[in-house]
């Protein structure tokens, strides 16, 4: 799945990923990377790995929690307000009232969007 390639990319290009997120933030103030810092990350939450629980075979802790920052407070605009290439891939999800599109090139950087769809809490991931 797509996350596989992202995970691999993250192991070799962490600085690139983080650096790119920063550059996107500076380019467009409405970028959701701005909002990601608004949710305080709980610092005292249990971590099974640090607590010594035996991870399943093949488990590799490479980065810290949220070092690749999820989008915690996504911001949306009407579809005619973005200039995405028509052939670029998007993850699309549709509810009874709302349809949302997440561009893959952005999910490549942020990997997770903590979101809602017609009031239902959802997680879009890549």
């Amino acid at each position, binding site marked *: *799945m797509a996350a596989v390639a992202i*995970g691999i990319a993250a192991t070799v290009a962490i600085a690139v990923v983080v650096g790119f997120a920063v550059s996107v933030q500076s380019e467009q103030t409405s970028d959701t990377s701005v909002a990601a810092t608004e949710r305080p990350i709980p610092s005292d939450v249990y971590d099974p790995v640090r607590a010594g629980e035996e991870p399943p075979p093949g488990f590799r802790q490479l980065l810290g929690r949220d070092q690749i920052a999820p989008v915690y407070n996504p911001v949306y605009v009407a579809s005619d307000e973005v200039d995405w290439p028509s052939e670029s891939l998007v993850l699309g999800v549709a509810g009874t009232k709302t349809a949302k599109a997440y561009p893959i090139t952005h999910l490549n950087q942020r990997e997770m969007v903590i979101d809602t769809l017609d009031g239902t809490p959802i997680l879009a991931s890549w």
Partner: protein
Amino acid sequence: MVHRREIDGEEIVLGNQGALWGNAMTWWDHDTGSIWSQPLGEAILGPRKGARLELMPSTLTTWEAWQAAHPETVALAVHASATDGFHLENMAVVVDLGAEAASYRIPPLRDVGVVNDVVAGIEIAVVIDPGDPQRWAVFSRRLDDATVNLAMTDGLLVDTTSGTVFDPFLGLGRSGLLADEDLNKLPAFTAFPSDFETFFPEGRTWPG
């Protein structure tokens, strides 16, 4: 892929664990710290180990094809550039219904248009939209009082028994005996075939 962030009706918040398992992303939940596998949607470590999140219907397609199907769509307020490295042609549609998982390679799917199958005892159909081969969907073939068998005929998605025509991406009944019913979308996602084999070693692959 898109999951419902609820356990027993309670919302949970997830973050990025920063670890790979099976070369795929893992999450952590903010209240118990449990660690989750993305492709399985299942907690693999911590207090919630064994719990699963419900996978929701979503799709991977081009921006043009998504807008055409959902003109009302909103867009995440970010830049997007041309997609590099990921093409549907290299991927498979994965249907994971818990008891059984199956994958369907995109290129042969495009050749046939629709595959009728049974996964975990559920009659399903995997459909490529003839209006735009960048659009795919997975439907349940069960309606209120009938189970349909779908075929792509002259560019239309048709139930071979009743003659009912359905929208190939949205599942809406368009014409025919069962036109007042809609096909329900089932959760599915796209993956590279090798990754499907890693996470679903017992999974079935179409074509065999």
